[in-house]
């Protein structure tokens, strides 16, 4: 064929470009993984109590059982391993969960402005926590965990169930009714929280502080509490990355391409909500990570959800890890800022910048 000579280099060129883009992706992934690992170590060394690096490393080694017990004094061991490392890892996990959940919600709802809290999961968690405070369960503890995360998780999953039930029309889970149901449930729960605050003035400050999001006083028990839900959620959404790509072309086309839209959408929603619930129940409501991070990643690595989820997870983890470092070190004298305030203060202007740049780009095109 005469034209095959003209097009075959083109085919090879495209194949080459795809291979190159895959290589860039893998290199980026390795770099981010290394940065994440170093960040965990670095953030563990930072704090109000100055501890030399050798002691930090030795304490981590001893805590993980890599070196024999007794090589580090008790105080630095507890500060580094039990207090800081657990908190750093928890903040990374929560950030990852929010990043991935944000990417999934934006895809499922086909709205780049959606975030993990769009369909009311966070309000459910906040209501659960508020109820716990009001009932005076704030101090109660189960294996050192406290009832707050437990009730927050129950609240989050309850809100999800409610939204899914309300969002069904003629047995189908539709995108638009889902968002509406989310708004209704979130508004209703916010009203209940306001009611609790009005009735129980003593609980107000605890509720307000919890809702702003913080990792203060969190430890290994919180990591262990949220990890199973986090892994289950991650498994559910990772399995459907390809279907999610196709579903962004619209429900009709997704069906015509062979996707069982109902089943996949339910799985993605439950998965992303589990991720959100796992995060919110141990940290409170931390905004902007789940909105800004997937946005930023989509602008750089593209819209394909497998890559989007992986990068959003790592970048979300990094963002929240360092936000938490800022929140616990910014004020002199050991005072802490709620980390949700830090992410909002950094994320808000940053997001505006992203939107501005994007709009500028479109005009230049």
């Amino acid at each position, binding site marked *: 064929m005469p034209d095959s000579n003209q097009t075959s280099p083109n085919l090879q060129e*495209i194949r080459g470009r795809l291979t190159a883009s895959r290589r860039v992706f893998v290199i980026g992934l390795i770099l981010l993984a290394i940065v994440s690992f170093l960040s965990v170590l670095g953030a563990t060394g930072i704090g109000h109590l100055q501890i030399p690096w050798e002691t930090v490393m030795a304490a981590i080694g001893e805590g993980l059982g890599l070196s024999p017990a007794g090589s580090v004094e008790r105080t630095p061991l507890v500060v580094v391993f039990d207090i800081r490392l657990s908190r750093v890892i928890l903040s990374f996990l929560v950030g990852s969960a929010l990043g991935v959940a944000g990417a999934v919600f934006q895809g499922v709802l086909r709205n780049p402005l959606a975030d993990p809290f769009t369909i009311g999961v966070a309000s459910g968690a906040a209501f659960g926590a508020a109820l716990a405070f009001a009932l005076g369960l704030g101090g109660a503890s189960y294996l050192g965990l406290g009832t707050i995360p437990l009730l927050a998780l129950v609240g989050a999953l309850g809100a999800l169930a409610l939204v899914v039930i309300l969002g069904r029309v003629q047995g189908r889970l539709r995108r638009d009714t889902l968002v509406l149901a989310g708004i209704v449930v979130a508004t209703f729960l916010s009203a209940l929280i306001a009611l609790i605050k009005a009735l129980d003035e003593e609980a107000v400050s605890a509720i307000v502080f919890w809702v702003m999001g913080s990792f203060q006083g969190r430890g290994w028990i919180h990591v262990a509490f949220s990890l199973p839900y986090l892994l289950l959620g991650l498994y559910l959404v990772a399995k459907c990355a390809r279907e999610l790509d196709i579903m962004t072309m619209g429900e009709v086309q997704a069906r015509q391409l062979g996707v069982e839209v109902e089943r996949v959408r339910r799985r993605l929603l439950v998965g992303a909500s589990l991720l959100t619930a796992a995060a919110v129940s141990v940290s409170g409501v931390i905004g902007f990570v789940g909105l800004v991070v997937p946005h930023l990643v989509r602008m750089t690595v593209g819209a*394909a959800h497998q890559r989007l989820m992986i990068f959003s997870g790592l970048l979300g983890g990094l963002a929240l890890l360092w936000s938490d470092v800022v929140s616990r070190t910014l004020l002199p004298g050991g005072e802490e800022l709620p980390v949700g305030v830090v992410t909002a203060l950094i994320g808000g202007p940053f997001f505006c910048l992203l939107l501005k740049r994007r709009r500028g780009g479109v005009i230049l095109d």
Partner: protein
Amino acid sequence: MLHGLDFHVGKSELVGLLGPNGSGKSTLLLCLSKVVPLHAGEATVSGRELSAYSARELALVEASVPQRLEISFPFRCIEVVLMGRYPHQREFGSDSDEDLTRAMEAMRLTDTLDLAQRRITEISGGEAQRVIIARTLAQEAELLLLDEATANLDVAHKMQMFDLFSKKNNQGVTFLCAMHDLNLAALYCQRLIFLKNGRISVDGPTMETFTEENLTKIYETEVRIIPHPDTGVPQAMFVPSATRRAQSA
């Protein structure tokens, strides 16, 4: 919405589905791809009851080009075309070399290979439509359902796409195309099915059904037919009301 439809499209037919707005063309195509459920009656594809197919199985035998594109995320065009390979892939599968070859062949045929690395959000509506046609071809189904697949394209690309459909048709692919462009339909389709108010109004070979009487009745506007100067197939000419008044006066 649709009533008493009874028709059979044979293998390797290229059938035009015509009719005014709201006559049920799109609904019929959506019923055939199981997006809109059938309330009564039955439909079979390749000798198998439609309801017996899973979504994936159905996507292996029939592919659709939608009337309206809903594009909200910046996928690269090659990624969009590769979505057509989804029913051929296993769970957790990734794009094989064969998938890539098939996708790129489909892009070559639709003249979109140059767009492969561009974002689908950055190209024109007509270009995006051709990318979607490429995706549908990459699906390699034996029945293609086209809903105004070329309505957004310029004349040259319209002709190019229908030349391509007719070539695929000669290789054994069956086409059912909902169209508003009567003359394009007459040029390429061997058979026409006219719908009106959800019922089949006329169904038969193009040469017999594409008549002044049928078209005037179905579209409720005056139509004149003249033969195509080169091929002799009937082509429709429409008459403005001012001319009509002048003639009658």
